[in-house]
C-alpha cells in the first residue's frame, strides 16, 4: 500500500515537472498566434521570442516569427525563419507550405514549386494542404478583385490554391503521406460579391489566416 502511494506520488511529481513548462509553452504559442491573428503582431513576436528562450530552435516559434515577418513584408527574413524552422521539424507540411509561399512571393518559382510539392505530399493532398493554410474552398460566387493596400504583404488565396493544385499534380497518385495534422475539410460558402472603394473588411486582413501557424 505504501509502495503504491509512493509510486503515485512520484509519478504525479514527474508529470507535474515534465508537463508544466510544456503547458506554459503551449499556452504562449496559442496566445501568440491569437495575438498575431488579431493584429497585435509586436506582442505576438515578443511571445514567440520568449519561446525561443525556453527552447532553442523551437520550430513553432520560428515558423510563427516567420509568419509575422511575412505579414510585415520582410519576405527574405521570413524565408530565413522558415528555413531555420524546417531544421527543427522537416516533416511539418505547414512549414513547407509557408516556405513555399515566401519563395513564391520572392519570385523563386522553381524552388517554390518544389516546396509546395513537398508540403502537399506531407499534408496528404491539396485539400488538406489548403485547409492547413486556412484557404477556403473555391467560392460559388466568384470574388471580385479587391484592393490589398493595408497590409504590407497580401496573399492571394487563389494563387496559393493554384500552386497547391499544380503541386498536387506533381505528387504521384496514391503516394501521399499524411502529416497527421487532423485538418477538417472546409465546406465553404460563397463570399460577398459587392465591393466598394471605401475601407474593406477583406483588404489583406485575411492574410494572417492564410498562413500556417504552428501551435
Amino acid at each position, binding site marked *: 500500500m505504501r509502495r503504491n502511494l509512493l509510486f503515485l506520488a512520484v509519478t504525479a511529481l514527474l508529470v507535474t515537472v515534465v508537463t508544466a513548462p510544456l503547458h506554459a509553452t503551449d499556452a504562449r504559442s496559442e496566445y501568440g498566434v491569437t495575438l498575431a491573428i488579431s493584429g497585435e503582431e509586436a506582442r505576438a513576436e515578443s511571445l514567440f521570442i520568449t519561446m525561443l528562450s525556453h527552447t532553442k530552435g523551437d520550430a513553432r516559434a520560428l515558423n510563427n516569427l516567420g509568419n509575422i515577418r511575412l505579414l510585415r513584408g520582410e519576405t527574405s*527574413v521570413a524565408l530565413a525563419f522558415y528555413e531555420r524552422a524546417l531544421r527543427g521539424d522537416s516533416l511539418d507540411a505547414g512549414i513547407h507550405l509557408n516556405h513555399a509561399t515566401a519563395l513564391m512571393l520572392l519570385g523563386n518559382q522553381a524552388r517554390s514549386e518544389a516546396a509546395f510539392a513537398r508540403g502537399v505530399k506531407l499534408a496528404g493532398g491539396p485539400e488538406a494542404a489548403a485547409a492547413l493554410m486556412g484557404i477556403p474552398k473555391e467560392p460559388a460566387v466568384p470574388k471580385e478583385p479587391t484592393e490589398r493596400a493595408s497590409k504590407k504583404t497580401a496573399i492571394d488565396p487563389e494563387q496559393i490554391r493554384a500552386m497547391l493544385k499544380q503541386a498536387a499534380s506533381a505528387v504521384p497518385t496514391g503516394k501521399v503521406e499524411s502529416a497527421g495534422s487532423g485538418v477538417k475539410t472546409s465546406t465553404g460558402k460563397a463570399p460577398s460579391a459587392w465591393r466598394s472603394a471605401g475601407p474593406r473588411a477583406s483588404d489583406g486582413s485575411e492574410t494572417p489566416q492564410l498562413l500556417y501557424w504552428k501551435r
Partner: protein
Amino acid sequence: MTSWNARWLRLAALLAACATFTPACEALARTPSNQVPVGPRAIAMGGAFSAIADDASALFWNPAGLVGVGNQELTASHANLFGVGIREDLAAFVLPLSPGFAMAADWYHSGFEDDELGFSENRATVGMAFKVRPWLWAGTGAKLLTRGTRLDGLSIVSGRGIGFDAGLLVSPTDHWRIGLVGQDVTGTDVRSSEGKGDNAYSRNLRLATAYTRPGLATAAFDVDDRWHLGLEVTPHALLALRGGAERDREGREDIAWSMGLGLKVGLARIDWARSVPPTLDPTDHFSFALEFNFNPAQVRIEKVQADEIYTSLYKSYARDAFGKVQLRNLQDRPLTTRVSVFIPELMTAPSEQEVTLRPGAVNEMPLTAVLDETVLGQRGDRPVQVQVSASYQSKRLVRREKGTARTFAYGPGAINWGEGMTQAAAFVTPRDPAVDALARQAGRLALALDKNPFGIRNMAFAAAVTDALAELGVAYVPDPTNPFSTISATPHAVDTIHYPYQTLDRLSGDCDDTTVLMASMLGNLGVNTQFVDVPGHILLLADTGLNERNRAALGVDSTLMVIDNERVWIPLETTSLAQGFVKAWRDGADAIAAGTATNKVHYFDVTQAQVNFEPATPPGERNVRSLVEERFSARLEAEAKEVSAIREQYFAARFGAGARELEATAGALEEVARIEFEGGNLEGAGSRLRGALAKAPQSASAHNNLGDVLAGMDSAAIADEHWQAALALGRRDPGIALNRGIVRWARGDGASAMSLLGPAVAEAGGYAAACRLVGLDPDGTHDRADDFSDELLTLRNGIRSVLQQSELAGKEQGKVSGPPSSTPILSNVPPSELSRYLYWIE
C-alpha cells in the same frame, strides 16, 4: 450581324432616307392629295396612319405595312360623306403568304346619284409587300380607276386610268416606326374613250412616324401637303379610343378634327370614326373586319395562373416562376413554340422563350419574365394583367394563341414571410448612396483608431456600424399595426420592409428594417452577414473573418459567438442599436441562446440568398446622413475599451498570466538575430544583438556577432571594437581573429590582415578548418557560376587565397614576401555580402 451593328444600319438607312426624301417632300407636297381617305381607324387618327398601316387599309395608307398584318383580314367600310348623299364604300382583303411576304386587294367605290345627275368612281387595287430586312419593309400597289358621270340617265363623261403606289417602313427600334409613301407616284390620269386625258389623282408624298407603348397607346404623325396627328389609346385589350387632327400646311383652313373607337371581340373588329371638317358637316365612317387564319390552331392555352408579384423581388422573376401556363399541343407531333409573357404595367418588352411541346399533351411551363427596373418606382399595390402568347409556324404563317390572367403587383417593400426569410436579402442594398456614405464614414473612422483596439478588423467595422446608427439615433420602433412577431407567423400575410435608405431617413424601424439596414452597411464594408430567424424575430450575425480554428483571437467565450461553416460569427441584436455595440452583441447572443434552447434558430447567409434574391436600389432622392466625427470617435473609443477589457480578461483566463511573464533571454535574441542576419535584415539583427548585450554584457558571442553585423553595415571600426571586446572577455576562438583579418584584407590592409590571419588559421587547425569556420568549402567545388555572381566568386576565391597564404606565412613564421593584395575587395562587393563570410558564434 450583331444587334448593335443592325441598329446602326437602321439609323443610317433612316438618315439617308430622310436626307433624300425631305427635299422631295418639300417640293412635291404643295400638290394637294385629292384621294379620299379610307378606313375608320385611320380617319379617326386624323389620317396619321402611314407609319402604322397594320390592317387591311394598309394597301391605301402604306402598302409596306401589309407584311406586318400577320393574318388574313377581310374588311368592309361605309360612309355617307358630309351628309350630302355621297356614298363611299370599301372592301379589302389581306393574305399573308409567308412570314415575310403578303398580298392584298381592295375595291373602292364612291358615288352620288339624284334624279338628274349621277357620278361614280370605282377603284380596284392589288398590292404586295415583303420584308427586305426584319426592320425594313417595302410594298407596292397598282390600281385601276374608272370614273363616269351621267345626266338624266345618259352617260356624258367616262374614262379609266392606271396608277401606282409604293411605300417603305423602317423600324429603328422595337416600338418606333418611320414610313415613307409615294401615292400615285406617276400621277394617275383618267383617259376618256375619246382620248381626252384628265388628272384624277396627283402625285402625293408622305413622311410619317409612329411610336407605340405596348398595351397603352400609339402616337402618330404624318406630313404631306397637310400635317396629320393621331393618337390611339388602348385602355383595355378589347377597346381602342382614337383622336386626331389635320390641317393644311399653309394654314389657310381651320383644323379638321376627328375621333373614333374600336371594339375587338374574337375574330371581329368594329370601328367607328367621325371626322369634323371646318366647313362641311361631320361624316361618320363604319367598318367591320374579320381577322382569321385558314389554318386551324395547333396549340391551345388551357390555363394561365399568375401568383402575386412583389416588385422588390422583381429581379428574381427572371429565373423563379411567379405562376404557370398550361399549353396543349393539339397535333400528333412535337411542336416548337415561342412563348411570350408580357405584363404591360411592369414590362416594356415581352419575355420570350422557345419550347418544344409534346404531341397531344398538356405541357406546363413556369411563368418567368424580365420585369423593368422602373417597377421599383411603383406607388402602392395595383392589379395587373399577365398576357401570354404562344407563336408557332402553321403552314407558312406564324399563328399566335393568346391567354391572360389577372393578379396583383405589390409595391416596393412588400414581402410575404411565408415564402421564406431569405427574401429579405433583396432589401440588403449596400450600394445605396445613403448606406454607402454612412458606412464609409463609419468604417474610415474605425480604422483611424490607434492600433485597432477591437483586435479584429471586422469587429471594428461591426462596432462602427452599430455605433454609427446609435449615434444618429436610429431607434427600434415596433410596427403597432402589423408587429413582426404576428405578421411573420401569419400565412399569406403581406408585410412591409423599409429599405435601408428609408430607415435612415425615418431614423426608426422594426426588427426587419434595422436588420436589413445593418446588413447593408456591413455589406458595404465587405463584412458578410446572416439573418437569424428565431420565433417571432429576426436579428443578424456578422462574420468576424476568423476561421473556426482561430476563434480564440476573438477574445470572448463561446457564448458570444456562433460557429457556422467553419467561420466565427458574432450575433447582433439590431433592436438594441441605441445602446451601442457591446449591448447589441450581448443581446444578440441572449436571443440566440433562447432560440437554441427551443431548437428554433435558423441562419440564412445573406450573400447566398442574394444569388436568388438579388437586391435592387429603388430610385429617388436620398437623405444622406453623416456623423459628427469627434463625438462618434469618442463613442467608438469607449466601446473599444470595453471590448479590450473583455478580451484581456478572456486571454488572462485562457492562457494564464504565465504566458506573458517570461522574458526573452539573450540567447533567444541572438538566435533571432542570426536569422535576421541570414535574411538580410542587418538593422534588425543589430538591434536584437544590442538587446542581447544589454541582458548579458559579458557575452563574447553577442560582441562577435554584433561585429559581424556592423561589418556588414560598413562600420568596420566599430565592428573591430566589438571583436576586440569579445577577445577581451577571454574567449579563445580563432574565428574572431579571422573576422578581424578578413575585414582588414577586404578593405585593402593586407599587411595587417596577414598578421591576424596567420595565427588565426593556425589556431583554427589549418586552412581547411579556417574555411569551414567562415562558411566556405576549402576546395571551391561548390562555387558554381549559376549560384554566385562573378563578384562573389572573386570574393570567395579571394578569401580562400588569403587564408591559404596566411597558413603558409604561419608555417614560414612570417617570411612572406608581401601582403596578398593591396586592392580593396569592397570596391566590387558590398559589405553585407562580405559579412556572410564572417564567423558567427551560434
